[in-house]
């Protein structure tokens, strides 16, 4: 089963890699954007879909990654490797601190606490003007020379998303990954079996935050510009929508959901201002006809 899915994913990556040079510039940047955002959605899926923790503040870790790059690459001239390591570690560190607060809560309370913590990061981005330049944001984030033009950057994003998918797919297929699904199904049973449930949730939270930070690093290079809009609530909500739309508990679903939302947001909005209406209709349709999301509906799970 895992092998078949890995082959499917490899096939999709190969197809994208081959098709990319044929794409006109605008669709190419959209596909690139979808890949970058897919990293955020996949990291969230580890919490929402696998562990059953609905985080509404995932833009925080994404934003920490993005701001780290923006600050290090513009003023201090730090290169890609340094920025990437710093962004991932810092996002993971922030998640490690926030997790201490958030993991104590469950369900709606978890949602509200992650929302509040996310707003803290947004508030810092907005108000700590001396560091973040506040509302103006930080512009002119230089792409590494090797990946400066769109096509090489697309391949870079493809490789990064592929790496994130591989790491997270290994994680959810591991014994630890099974414990996350067990926690989603019954925390009290996990406790009585002898699991330290808090520890497992906390580790998942920190890993998820670090991966989201990795996505944020890429986002800063992709956009060349980082501002408080990148860490605002709407970004967190969009990530949740991507996971719900594509299928929680299926990493591939997060990628599909990211693709659908990036496409609707950027492509459909060219033709109508009412793209949100179309997004709403798509979302309601998925909830009604495929409550397990697009990919979830394609996988039958009664007997494996």
């Amino acid at each position, binding site marked *: 089963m895992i092998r078949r899915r890995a082959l499917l994913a490899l096939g999709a990556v190969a197809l994208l890699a081959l098709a990319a040079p044929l794409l006109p510039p605008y669709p190419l940047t959209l596909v690139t954007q979808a890949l970058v955002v897919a990293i955020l959605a996949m990291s969230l899926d580890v919490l929402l879909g696998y562990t059953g923790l609905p985080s509404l503040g995932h833009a925080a870790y994404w934003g920490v990654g993005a701001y780290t790059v923006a600050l290090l690459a513009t003023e201090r001239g730090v290169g890609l490797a340094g920025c990437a390591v710093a962004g991932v570690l810092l996002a993971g560190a922030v998640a490690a601190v926030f997790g201490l607060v958030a993991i104590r809560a469950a369900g709606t309370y978890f949602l509200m606490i992650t929302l509040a913590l996310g707003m803290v990061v947004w508030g810092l981005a907005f108000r700590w003007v001396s560091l973040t330049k506040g509302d103006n944001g930080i512009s002119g984030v230089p792409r590494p020379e090797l990946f400066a033009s769109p096509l090489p950057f697309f391949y870079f994003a493809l490789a990064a998303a592929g790496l994130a998918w591989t790491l997270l797919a290994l994680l959810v297929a*591991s*014994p630890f990954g099974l414990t996350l699904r067990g926690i989603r*199904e*019954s925390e*009290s049973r996990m406790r009585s079996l*002898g*699991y330290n449930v808090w520890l497992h949730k906390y580790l998942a939270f920190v890993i998820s935050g670090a991966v989201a930070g990795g996505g944020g690093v890429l986002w800063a290079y992709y956009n060349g510009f980082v501002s408080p809009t990148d860490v605002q609530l709407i970004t967190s909500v969009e990530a949740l929508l991507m996971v719900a739309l594509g299928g929680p508990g299926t990493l591939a679903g997060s990628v599909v959901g990211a693709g659908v939302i990036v496409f609707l947001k950027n492509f459909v909005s060219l033709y109508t201002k009412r793209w949100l209406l179309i997004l709403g209709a798509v979302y309601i349709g998925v909830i009604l006809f495929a409550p397990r999301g697009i990919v979830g509906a394609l996988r039958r799970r009664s*007997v494996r």
Partner: protein
Amino acid sequence: MTDDALRLDGVAKHFGGLRAVDGVSLTVRPGERRALIGPNGAGKTTLFNLVAGMLPVTQGTIRLFGANVTGAPPHRRAALGLARTFQITNLFLGLTVLENCLLAVQALTPSRLSMLRPLTGYHALYARARAILAAVGLAGVDGVVVANLSHGEQRQLEIALALAGKPRLLLLDEPTAGLSPAESRLMADLLANLDPAITVLMIEHDMDVALALASHVTVLHYGRVIADGSRDQIRNDPQVREIYLGV
């Protein structure tokens, strides 16, 4: 002298003004089969939750195999060899039977925290999970999602999960709850064939099952132990007959 498997001293649990468990002291010796009976609301399940660490005690001490675990979290108690089943079936409904059993098998192994190797590579865990499923008679349904199992099969899986961690003390909370007479007999056979080294404390309403399995019975009433003795003593105890059997 070996330590008692379980020793409770003056254990109490108050919910506001309600004394659900009111100063219970009891000892269960290693290898013993003990039934815990009592009318509805006697505090039996609450007592189990205190022993397993799902609820904090108001007063008293709990010792497992000589170790004071009064304030210890559930996973620490499980590591000492405690396992339990639930009165209301508590399984991983969205996972397959085999996945349920794998979770139970790996719970007390270091691999539970391993993150970068697929579970399918852990052949020893699979072998043990399959062996346990076979032992409780669920070998044929290991790929079925638990939500699709019959109630009887779910009760069997409850037992499988509790046995998977090789427990030394097993708490069974009404293992035959909701089972048909035929299923109850299967369950009683399953329990009768448990490894004699495992200490068992069971809540059971079906007196045939309880008295067939347990040599020693503790009777709980309004949170207090009102009788404690061999099954014949309990059968003939006038107070027990009055409140429990309504004679």
